[in-house]
């Protein structure tokens, strides 16, 4: 019952009583009519709630396909159409329906909701949304508000209609990316040849003596006549260059909104490099590591290998359980908003009854505790906890924060405030990452073939001053003639400008951005210095510039050139 109807009941009863007492029949008649009308609306409302709403069929189609696609692509638009059909009775009035949007999606056109204002058999609405980042996209269901036509009664419900999709990472197309290596007038050093092995290429590799079994058309007759012995022509073919990517999925790379995380930058680069490499016929593999474990994707070529890699990157992009945080007001607000959106029927005070409490004495604090109790009951129900655990959750902030975080993470909330505090983890997180990276690099070198290209994508900026832990593994890789490229994603998502005189910022945000850029530039310089000394390349961005640099290194490895003479910047 809403406030509106409560007031009307009160007025109706008062009017009826006064009308009868004072013999004013019109007043009594009018007031009783209002009371009866409210009674009729009440019974009709509950009838709709029991007989019509549970039998509503929901059909959600993605991109006009009848069968839901298993895979979607990050950064692309999807057209979603939701159709509600009343199997028993009709829909409305008034029915407000909204599709619960996950954080990994952003509406581009349409509103994602509809209002049914009069009785009808079906209702439909559609909208277009953009998927922000790779990972899993879960469309859980519809949030419904059932009201009578005059707003006297209201019920909030959640109609489950779960659909889960695997979102593959976006990548730059091969045609858009060109290596930065200069091709024209590139004279290799004397004695250096392209990687060669015998095959059925077009260029002559060598001449050798004929052995039984060689095809007759490969016999070089003129040379054989000159040398008085049968000689066979040996043609060359290129050996594919193996690319192995190391992608860092530590906590610092997962913090931020979907599509804006450092991990999203790195995955974009990884997918683009893989696409270019596969287009050139080179096999691509990856090692995905984070604080939990390390997963190796063996190098493979072709479309099948490419999509297997994309699938692995997409799975890697899913955030695991977040690091533990203290309970804050914002976290409490976030979890209560989630509960009221997804579990409105569990917040009904007739179902989720409140116990009598003497303490705390302050009404505001008691109200806050009761609200926390409501959420604690929902958490207990969801995770199968006992009733005494509900009281623990009410009074133990750490335990409540733990379960609240767990629930928020399960519902796809991004790692931002208040779920994960974006504090300056800095140096210590960087050290942990370097340890993992060293181990992954060493393992990769141990199982490597010749002349591989290692692309290391990790957040190393914070520990640029001290990367000694990484150097031994790096030296081992370089000593085996592998090429190593570092891609360090930028927290500010843009390259620091070199010329500061161009624009003169006056507002606080620009000044802060400039200060961040200065710090990033300094750290970048130190990192580059440390790694260049050993012969590794560094790119400070998760953009096409980094991809071009990696392609250049791949071509260098293929050609056998030692230097990047004529390389564009």
């Amino acid at each position: 019952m809403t406030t509106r109807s409560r007031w009307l009941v009160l007025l109706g009863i008062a009017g009826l009583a006064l009308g009868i007492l004072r013999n004013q029949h019109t007043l009594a008649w009018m007031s009783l009519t209002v009371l009866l009308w409210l009674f009729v609306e009440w019974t009709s409302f509950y009838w709709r709630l029991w007989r019509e709403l549970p039998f509503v069929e929901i059909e959600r189609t993605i991109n006009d396909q009848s069968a839901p696609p298993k895979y979607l692509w990050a950064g692309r638009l999807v057209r979603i159409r939701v159709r509600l059909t009343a199997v028993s009775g009709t829909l409305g009035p008034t029915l407000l329906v909204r599709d619960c949007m996950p954080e990994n999606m952003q509406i581009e056109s349409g509103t994602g909701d509809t209002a049914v204002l009069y009785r009808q058999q079906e209702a439909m609405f559609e909208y277009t949304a953009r998927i922000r980042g790779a990972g899993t996209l879960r469309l859980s269901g519809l949030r419904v508000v059932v009201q009578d036509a005059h707003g006297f009664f209201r019920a909030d419900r959640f109609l489950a209609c779960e659909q889960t999709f695997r979102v593959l990472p976006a990548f730059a197309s091969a045609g858009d990316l060109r290596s930065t290596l200069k091709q024209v007038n590139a004279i290799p050093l004397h004695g250096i040849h392209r990687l060669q092995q015998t095959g059925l290429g077009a260029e002559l590799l060598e001449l050798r003596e004929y052995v039984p079994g060689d095809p007759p058309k490969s016999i070089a007759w003129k040379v054989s006549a000159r040398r008085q012995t049968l000689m066979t022509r040996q043609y060359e073919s290129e050996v594919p260059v193996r690319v192995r990517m190391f992608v860092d999925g530590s906590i610092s790379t997962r913090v931020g909104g979907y599509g804006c995380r450092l991990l999203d930058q790195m995955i974009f680069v990884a997918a683009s490099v893989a696409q270019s490499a596969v287009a050139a016929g080179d096999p691509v593999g990856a090692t995905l590591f984070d604080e939990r474990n390390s997963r190796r994707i063996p190098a493979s070529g072709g479309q099948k290998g490419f999509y297997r890699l994309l699938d692995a990157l997409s799975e890697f992009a899913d955030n695991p359980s977040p690091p533990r945080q203290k309970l804050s007001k914002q976290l409490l607000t976030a979890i209560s908003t989630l509960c009221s959106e997804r579990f409105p029927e569990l917040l009904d005070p007739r179902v989720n009854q409140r116990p009598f409490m003497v303490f705390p004495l302050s009404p505001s604090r008691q109200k806050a505790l009761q609200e926390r109790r409501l959420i604690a009951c929902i958490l207990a129900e969801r995770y199968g906890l006992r009733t005494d655990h509900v009281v623990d959750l009410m009074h133990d902030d750490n335990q409540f924060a733990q379960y609240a975080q767990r629930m928020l993470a399960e519902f796809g909330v991004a790692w931002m405030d208040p779920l994960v505090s974006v504090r300056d983890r800095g140096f210590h997180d960087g050290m942990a990452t370097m340890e993992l990276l060293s181990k992954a690099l060493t393992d990769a070198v141990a199982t490597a073939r010749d002349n591989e290209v290692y692309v290391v994508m990790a957040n190393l900026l914070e520990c640029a001053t001290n990367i000694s832990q990484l150097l031994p593994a790096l030296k081992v890789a370089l000593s085996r003639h592998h090429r190593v490229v570092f891609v360090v994603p930028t927290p500010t998502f843009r390259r620091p400008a070199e010329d500061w005189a161009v624009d003169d910022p006056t507002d606080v945000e620009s000044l802060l951005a400039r200060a961040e850029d200065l710090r990033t530039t300094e750290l970048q310089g130190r990192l580059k210095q440390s790694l260049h000394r050993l012969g590794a390349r560094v790119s400070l961005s998760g953009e096409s510039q980094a991809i071009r640099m990696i392609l250049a290194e791949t071509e260098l490895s293929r050609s056998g050139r030692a230097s990047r003479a004529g390389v564009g910047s």
Partner: protein
Amino acid sequence: MKPAIQEHSIPRIWLHAYFGLTLVFGFLLFWLLFGETEFATAAKLIFLAVFILTLKRWTGAVLFVFCQLQLLFLEPASSTAFFSFDALMWSGLSLGMLVVVSRYRTLQDRDTVVAHRSFFSTAREAINGNQPDVDAAQMSEVFRQLTKCVATLLLCSMVAWGILDWFPTGGSLSGFSSIREYRLTPNGYRLLICSISLFCGFFVAWLLVNELCWRKLNARQSRIYLHSVLLKFLYRDFRSVTKRRLKRRLKRRRKQAKSSHNNGDIPIID
């Protein structure tokens, strides 16, 4: 903790139709309220102010109070149940106003555009014949819904009439005197009987609705209900156990922090 259902655009014709009807009923009531009484002007001004606030924010209940006050002060007390033209007119106006204002407020709460700002542009479009099919379809639905509502109200008023007619109007009936028997005035006696009868009828319906509500609970709601009922009985005991446990944990951590501080270690702060 109600989540925000986004305000969105609903068909304008609905909002403007009910806005127009609200204005019509408001004007009629303003014209007829308190007639030629000496406080008519003051009452009308207050009604106008409340009416404007209702368009902006309030519900129709406040306007309904004015109608009840009109009848309370100006309707003559009569011993026979007789419904004159005035009575029918006032009832019709009050209930009609309640219906349209409630519907208008329900629609306005869901719309991003304020009705009065776009009312004239919509009227102009309708006159010019833009989107005639859409408007015609929507108008027919508006009319159909209004008709249903009016039919419901008529039915309720007839039932109300029947109920009031059925209960004795007071005075002695077959020698019965409420004053002698119960020390109640006839009107008081009538009120008592009426309210008890209506309450019994409502109570039966309420029991039935509640019973059906319980039977419709899903598994999750049932579990939550069990948790909450158990919590109602045992909350104090659980609370004392939890508080004691937390106190012990805090004491242990303080001791650990103190001992590590004395050893020169970096204390672990949780």
